């Protein structure tokens, strides 16, 4: 079967590739053996941030190369690395107060509200909004809003204020997970029980049983509805 082909320009050089391919697939079809710019190949890791423009248009667009199908006359450049700012901290020693963000990522207060981050997000997140939540110390909201971030760094590449949005969001999520989310009593209780050896003899009994008996137990175990 003859495939439909399109012309794309990979870092400015022209290649003719099947139109059903993703950008990542098209680069491989063109003969690239990818080393950088390729991780999970399925939209989870953010390794494959890519900037493109369609010939005749002025607007720059961004995407994940593993998630975006090629288009006719696509000019594309990969962004396999972006120097985000990552500040170190000890999660057990900080507190989920407004001050911590001010201390670690003060540049978030230089946001000029241009919304370039949101417009460029490959995951369609409302990036500027989650930064606003971070500014106000509303970490739970920042965490929710940023949850699907794959940390590709495109937002930061477009930010005139030099904000490393993905790192800000990650800090907010860790603060939320560690401090703001309610504790799980059943989990703590179970950890204690195990530590106290509550299940030890039960487990040892089970492990001593012959396989045939285990099969019986397994095949007739009750299943929670």
């Amino acid at each position, binding site marked *: 079967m003859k*495939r439909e082909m399109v012309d794309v320009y990979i870092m400015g050089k022209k290649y003719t590739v*099947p139109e*059903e*391919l*993703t950008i990542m*697939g098209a680069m*491989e*079809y063109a*003969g690239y*053996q*990818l*080393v*950088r710019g*390729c*991780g*999970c*190949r*399925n*939209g*989870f*890791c953010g*390794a494959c941030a890519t900037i493109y423009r369609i010939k005749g248009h002025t607007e720059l667009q961004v995407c994940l190369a593993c998630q*975006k199908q090629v288009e006719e006359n696509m000019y594309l450049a990969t962004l396999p690395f972006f120097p985000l700012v*990552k500040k*170190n901290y*000890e*999660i057990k020693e900080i507190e989920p107060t407004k001050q911590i963000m001010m201390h670690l990522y003060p540049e978030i207060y230089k946001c000029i509200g241009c919304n370039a981050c949101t417009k460029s997000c490959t*995951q369609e997140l409302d990036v500027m909004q989650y930064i606003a939540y971070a500014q106000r110390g509303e970490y739970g909201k920042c*965490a929710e809003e940023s*949850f*699907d971030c*794959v*940390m590709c760094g495109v937002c930061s590449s477009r930010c005139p204020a030099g904000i490393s949005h993905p790192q800000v969001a*990650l800090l907010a*999520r*860790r603060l*939320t*997970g*560690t401090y703001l*989310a*309610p504790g*799980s*009593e*059943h*989990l*703590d209780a*179970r*950890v204690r029980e*195990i530590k106290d050896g509550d*299940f030890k003899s*039960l*487990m040892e009994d*089970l*492990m001593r049983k012959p*396989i045939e008996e*285990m*099969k019986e137990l*397994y095949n007739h*175990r009750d299943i*929670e509805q």
Partner: protein
Amino acid sequence: MYSHEMIESIKKVEATRQDRIGADLRRMTADEKEQLLRQYHPDFVEDGFQSLQVGPNRGDKVPHELAELLQAESRLARMKGPEGMESFEAVLVAPDYETDVLVIGGGGAGASAAIEAHEGHADVMIVTKLRMGDANTMMAEGGIQAADKEHDSPAIHYLDAFGGGHYTNRPELLYKLVTEGPECVKWLNDLGVMFDKDADGTMVTTHGGGTSRKRMHAAKDYSGAEIMRVLRDEVMNRDIPIVDFTVAIELILDDQGKAAGAVLMNLETQEILIAKAKTVIIATGGAGRLHYQNFPTSNHYGATADGLILGYRAGAQLLYADTLQYHPTGVAYPSQIFGALVTEKVRSLGAQLVNRDGTAFMNPLETRDVSAASIIRECRTRKKGIGAAEGEGVWLDTPMIEMIHGEGTIEARIPGMLRMFGKYDIDIRKDPILVYPTLHYQNGGLKINAEGLTDIDRLFVAGEAVGGIHGRNRLMGNSLLDIIVFGRNAGRNAAALSKSVQTGRLTLDHVKRFASELEKAGIHPEKVSPLLLPTYTHGREHD
């Protein structure tokens, strides 16, 4: 957009949907399952396998693709200069890195190991193929098991995993997995992983295939990503050195035959680097990118079984390397995401597997191997599949989810799935999706004891590169758990051991020895290994 044939079939699926809700779909009996697996599971396809002729598992069968790499030539042998392998041995005396604990692989197991080794006051470093976190861990969607609910217990967890693993799990490893599970979930929680919880803090838990209690904890459908992001951040907070885009291509042993480091290669410059270490932890993950029996895969780009090759060549035994997990629900359509994973959570939430006529042909919560075999049978023998560009598939009836749990459930609980298909104009809230098994998980791997040690002194393994924890079939959610339990375990033990280690003279004798064994067996390998990265051409040679 769906083809005409697909749309016609979807109408039949819609017609039966209401009646299928709440229908009691019978589970297969033990005998039925056994029969089904023997006939249809890829592990039982005899011409997919061959016997190893060399090494500690001589005589055991493994997939052809793995055998070729296990019995291939060392990369060093191909690179060698005028003095042969000796030219590499000459540089062993001047290592580029020296550390107490060398962690090979920057996924969830490697990160957990590094954090605990650091906690144990050891010098630790990570080398990893791509970026830190470009790994199978990042891709896990469904969740992580742990028996932390009142009506559940480690014993019930043990039974589920043991039965699911066909009674072949190593008891001492499984014991560790289930008894340390809750503490590991707590560890993650305290590090800041945002688990799904009710307002009172109760973990939201669901079933996975083969569980008898709802013990699957999740962080939306980004469970693995959420865990990986936090662990990576923690590794960085501790200033643990990460050498990325660098692969281990051979282990180094000392003159006592104990692990003593690895030969590394910078993937971009091909520069060879020597890492000397008191202890080594292999955490290189799975093998999906070897595409056994030509299956597509859900795995990340670097999943090429490298750790198994390195360990085997140094004399470590493999266990159950002939069993792979084919996830029943890989994407069959559209082709851009062919082979990608549709999380099992979709079935946990109530979506059924339905054939071209709109009939639900099985209980959607059977174990993975049984489900995969059942889908293959439905398509291959019963001819009830739906054709797609690459092969065929059956429907996974996602719209049922919102009919059962209410509108908004899909967006709240499986947003990643909604987005993945949404990009190709398929709204999974309205239309079902087409699925077929995809190569997903390496059940087998290097054999370890409860300390995480292989047959080789000072060589630890953790994560998907281990064989034995899950027996011949792993349940969903037990792998994210094992990388934390056994990753931390290996890190802790390696750090402690490193305190008393005196490394001898570094050698690559084992590499030479393996080559001469190949020679003796009459094998003249064409391939070099480890593979490091797959090569894709997308049919260029046929155009």
